[in-house]
């Protein structure tokens, strides 16, 4: 697994609704490889790669580029920042973490009293950017600015660990697929969606705009394999591409699940069937777009999702790249045949 040239995926800022930085980086990276680049009003980036077939159909591939984070709601007279969440993250994941703003300003999350450690509450926490007072803080950060936990992901011993793996690893998969597909039968619409973490918003408007014939979402899924851990789903890190059967927001059409599994079998790609008790992914919005769309998901099992130490296996990422590539190249996709 080689991240060379795509390291920016783990450093380019993009909290939900404020994805400009990462959007520009992805656009400039993908620009030379695609036929057309579009944006939608919600902030998604759409890279279009035209297929060669006459009567070709539209495949929408989607990974969200936004990350969870925080939004500044108040700056006190001593320059400390109060915040609200953008997307969900447990208190225990926050304390002592560094956060980064779009401008590059760095802060640390603290809490008011040591006794609060036993029962952490976000409204007793603040972000400290080391400013002397409100005036100095105001020069660095404005109310309404967003920030995210700063823990750039690294590769060691077959795993990738750090922040923002959800879902920059999915963006990585899409960029890999984009580079590999060469000549392909159908139009490929690579959507780097916005605002997923606050309610699957970007995928909704992109799916409406593009009217795809089929959708495939690359995102992370819970790896339910921790010692004495709660069983939250069926997938485990290192066991292959997780083919979505169901999560808290979607039930994938059975034929599509079967087709993806058969494709993995055919090409010897490791896979597992993914059932997740909770969660929601862009698959939901694509499936329910307009009159309904066939939509599925291929996911990377990830531990400690939404923490600064998300962890996934390179082999699973590779399996997702391989399976998604094959999906794009397959001439006889039964969902894209001539119906009339």
């Amino acid at each position, binding site marked *: 697994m080689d991240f060379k040239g795509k390291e920016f995926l783990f450093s380019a800022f993009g909290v939900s*609704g404020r994805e400009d930085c990462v959007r520009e980086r992805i656009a400039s990276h993908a620009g030379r490889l695609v036929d057309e680049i579009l944006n939608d*009003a919600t902030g998604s980036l759409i890279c279009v790669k035209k297929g060669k077939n006459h009567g070709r159909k539209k495949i929408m591939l989607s990974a969200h580029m936004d990350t969870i984070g925080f939004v500044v709601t108040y700056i006190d007279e001593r320059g400390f920042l109060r915040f*609200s969440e953008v997307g969900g993250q447990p208190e225990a994941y926050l304390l002592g973490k560094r956060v980064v703003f779009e401008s590059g300003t760095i802060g640390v999350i603290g809490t008011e009293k040591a006794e609060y450690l036993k029962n952490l509450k976000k409204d007793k926490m603040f972000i400290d950017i080391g400013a002397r007072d409100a005036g100095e803080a105001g020069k660095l950060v404005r109310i309404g600015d967003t920030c995210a936990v700063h823990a750039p992901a690294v590769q060691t011993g077959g795993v990738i660990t750090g922040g923002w793996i959800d879902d920059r690893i999915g963006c990585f998969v899409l960029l890999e697929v984009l580079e590999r597909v060469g000549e392909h039968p159908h139009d490929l619409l690579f959507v780097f969606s916005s605002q997923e973490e606050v309610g699957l918003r970007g995928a909704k*408007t992109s799916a*409406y*705009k593009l009217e795809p014939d089929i959708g495939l979402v690359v995102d992370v899924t819970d790896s339910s394999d921790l010692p004495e851990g709660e069983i939250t789903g069926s997938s485990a890190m290192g066991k292959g591409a997780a083919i979505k059967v169901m999560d808290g927001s979607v039930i994938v059409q059975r034929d599509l699940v079967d087709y993806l599994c058969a494709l993995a079998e055919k090409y010897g790609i490791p896979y597992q069937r993914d059932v997740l008790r909770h969660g929601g992914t862009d698959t939901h919005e694509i499936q329910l777009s307009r009159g309904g769309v066939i939509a599925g998901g291929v996911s990377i099992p990830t531990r400690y999702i939404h923490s600064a130490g998300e962890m996934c296996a390179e082999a699973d990422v590779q399996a997702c790249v391989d399976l998604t590539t094959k999906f794009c190249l397959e001439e006889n996709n039964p969902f894209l045949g001539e119906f009339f």
Partner: protein
Amino acid sequence: MEAVELLKRYSNHRAAAGDEEELRAAIRGDVKETVDDVSVNPLGNLTAVRRGKDGEKSILVTAHMDEVAFMVKAVEKSGLIRMYAVGGISPKVLVGNQVLVGRDRKPGVIAYRSYHLMTPQERKKIPEIKELAIDVGAGSSEEVRDVGPGDYAYFMSEFFAQGDCYFGKAFDDRAGCAALTWLLGEYGGETRPEVTVVATYTAQEEVGLRGGQTAGFGLRNVLFNLNLEGTTCSDRELKTSYTPITVSGAGPAITFMDRTSVTNRKLFEFVTGVAQKRGIPYQLKKGVAGGTDAGAVALTGEGIPAVTISLPIRYIHAPWGIANRSDFDNYLALADAIVGESPGFGARGAKT
């Protein structure tokens, strides 16, 4: 018409989700002479269109008609009326309030056991809405035959002004409705806006942005949605919080993010820029609680950039709210300025 007269009349009208007719009829009467077209959609949204000098471009300006209120669940044999909340109402603000029930607007009070009859534990506890009832003074259900399940009950509060403040119910979002009607009046007669103003008074916002989901559907060439709202104001919280969401008297509040939307960055900067350029006082809404129709409009079709500006209202979603006179004036001024400057918001959506 004077905007405050509109606020007073609209505030006194009774209209909850699914029962907007009374207010809708009043608004229709107020706008029909000044606009080019008025229509009502199946969900109950009233849309008034004032065509602009630019025949292509338009802006969608929204405000929701419905207020928080109650729906009758059952009339008990005793004549007591049990109810559900329609929209978010805390039982903390209810006991002892006057309400009007049913189509005949029969007066009643929200009843609960008196102080003397409560145990010491009960005195500290807040009853749930299902434990409360409306007493219209009937001896039995026979005497309230004209009220039945599905009927609505409304707070009785009548608007008044005192000092720098307006007092009344349902400023969320009659403030927005009043501002919208006033705006349309500004563009009546020989005057036309630069771009077409599609003014939609939405239904059923308080139960889940339902009217808002249909408000933007099918519109073409919409530059953006300006959503006019009322919002929480916590400057009188007894337990001092470090950050009031909004402060009464500090101007209309502009939303950067809430539970249902992240304001399109270019639009947020455009709106704050307009306020600065025109010297209109404003504040940012310093909290992300609550959702508005802007969240639903933003996700319509391919997406529509949407922004909310709000009048700060103390004690919102309760029988009485208090709004500041100068805030209301500046709210009108800001809405007017945004509409006036709207052609300046040229590029639609995110950067291309």
